[in-house]
């Protein structure tokens, strides 16, 4: 049990927590939070993999990719929130509308 596997395992747990919440929560803002937690889990696995060298300094390539990833997940959050506000404005809902015809979902 070393540092790398500890962090990588926690990243997986964070991703799973986020995915679970994304599936079962209905409020759109909650879904956005859940997707952000999923992203953090992926970043954690990635950085932990980059930190497996003996030098104690993480590999710059995963670091740079995670930096890009953080900005992209910010873009996702911004657009998703504006879309959620728009959905709320058009339908009065803060959850995704369910089609009443299809009883499957």
């Amino acid at each position, binding site marked *: *049990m070393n*540092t790398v596997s*500890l*962090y*990588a*395992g*926690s990243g*997986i747990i964070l*991703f799973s*927590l*986020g*995915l*679970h919440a994304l*599936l079962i929560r*209905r*409020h*759109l*803002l*909650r879904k*956005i*939070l*859940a997707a*952000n*937690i999923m992203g*953090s889990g992926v970043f*954690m*696995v990635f*950085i932990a993999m*980059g*930190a497996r*060298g003996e030098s104690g*300094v*993480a*590999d*710059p*390539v995963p*670091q*740079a*990719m995670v*930096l*890009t990833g*953080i*900005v*992209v997940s*910010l*873009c996702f*959050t*911004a*657009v998703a*929130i*504006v879309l*959620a*506000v728009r959905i*709320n404005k058009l*339908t009065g*809902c*803060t*959850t995704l*509308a*369910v089609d009443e015809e299809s009883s499957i979902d």
Partner: protein
Amino acid sequence: MEPALIFDLVLLLILIGLAWLLLASTDLFRAVVLFIAFGLLLALAWVRLGAPDVALAEAAIGAGITGALLLVGLGRLGSTERCRFSRAPLTFLQRLSAPVLVGVMIPSISLILLLEVHQLAGTTPGRQGLINAFLDVSGSGHGVTAVLLNFRAWDTLLEKGVLLLALITIWSLDQARPLFHQEDISPQLMGLARLLLPLVIVVAGFVLWQGDQAPGGAFQSGALLSAGILLAILVGYSLPQRWQGLSLRLLLAIGFGVFLLIAAATLLYSGYPLQYPEHLAGSLILLIELVATASIAALLAAAVVGGHPPDDLSTPAAKAPSTSGRR
């Protein structure tokens, strides 16, 4: 057990606990505040993993700007689940599907991947050595900056494009509305802003400049500057009407535009996009970082405000009345 490992264990347990709490919380405001705390602790985890660049970005962008975005969104959406559509109750199998997927499939797939990577760890040392060997010709003294703006500059170019595209999407969906009422501004906040704003600008400049040698760079600096812009907006400053047209759009697009022009110029010069001539690499990276910082700051602040600037003067309610030139 080493003390450092105990620290890691405690930190990770707190992180997982916070994630669980914020996702299960019934009060969405509490969830957002917990999310900001989660982001700050995550920055600590990045430091522990030897990634201070990511830690800076996480604290500034992941916790700060995302937190501001979520709070603004929460203010517009409200915390309750409102819906006029009725929902049929789920069957037992449907209820079971989410826990099975998340509890069994994701961990087992991840475990297999991790074991594979673990076997790989013995054979390949990662890219650290390769990057150090070529650092001299990259035009930057810091590995992460060299990767971001030279070795893998394509990623950064496209990411700037994504940021611009996100703002175009936001602007096409909505018109900007004021974040607060003008009379709500407290004099204390006003005084604090006067003290903090010059400091934010100086620190942002420092973070940008030291990105050449140490952790820091355009993203972190841009996020700091955008926090300054948001603070200025919160105490009632706003962009004068005459600058909300073409000049604002130019500022938003210049980071991506200059980067793209440099990509085109290097394509003509050396046959490959973003393969800088060796003696110019340092100056080109500095130029890209400077314009990128200005653009990122404006883009992030505009994303938090949300929506395009009001089109005409006939809707004065859409913008705060006092217009001072601070931006």
